[in-house]
């Protein structure tokens, strides 16, 4: 018998990271996955969060050239 009521979409979106991090209790994980079975909106939300993580992993940045120059100078002055 299930005592807990169903999760709403508003609740699901706040649990997505805990779900992806495998930090939900077994019972909550089950409720989360049951909701996804019938809710396309939440399925899309979960996919969008996963895609966000993937795109964040593609971010490339450069360090300021002047900082790089200072670091290289420090390296030249360093003796192991």
């Amino acid at each position, binding site marked *: 018998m299930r005592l807990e009521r169903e999760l*709403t979409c508003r609740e699901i979106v706040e649990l997505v990271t805990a779900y992806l991090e495998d930090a939900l209790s077994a019972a909550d994980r089950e409720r989360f996955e049951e909701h996804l079975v019938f809710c*396309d909106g939440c399925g*899309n*939300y979960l996919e*969008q969060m996963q895609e966000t993580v993937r795109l964040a992993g*593609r971010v490339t940045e450069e360090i300021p050239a002047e900082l790089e120059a200072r*670091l290289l100078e420090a390296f030249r002055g360093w003796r192991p």
Partner: protein
Amino acid sequence: MDDASLVAALHAGDEGAFRDLIRLYGPGMLRVARMYVSSRAVAEEVVQEAWLGVLKGIGRFEGRSSLKTWVFRIVANTAKTRGQREARSLPFSAFGDEDEGATVSADRFLGDGTRFPGHWAAPPASWAPLPEGSLLADETMQVVQRAIDRLPPAQRAVLTLRDVEGVEADEVCNALDLTETNQRVLLHRARAKVRAALEEYLQ
């Protein structure tokens, strides 16, 4: 290059290997430093000091963690010490400027007087039909980059370490002195904001 070869290259005074390393981790280190200090300029000083610490300590690096994790731990500790010395450090502490509340706007959901309160009023669309080229286009990546830049410092540091640099959750907790729950909440808020920026751009 694996960690052992990198360490050996640094020992041998290989400037190219050092340059590759600072280019690889420097941007993430700056974001971590900004979690604790008040300005970009001070963050740069922290990163420089941290690299000097890395070089000084390289002989003691035993490979128990990855070189990456070790470097990020050093920059976090350097920044913390520097932040404590700064008169203005308090408002920039890990949680001083972080927000609370729902990560998705309330008007996306049906209200209490409706048949399905709390369910989507405006459900998100699938991004699956979007071509890979448009997701990875420079403009899309700039949206991601700008959204990360706008995050509060602790959220920015956690998302940078976890999602940009790929550091494991327990290593991030360790380096930034966060509980598992705090780390996850910061990551959740940060990801939700970047997602929202992407949704707005892609729709």
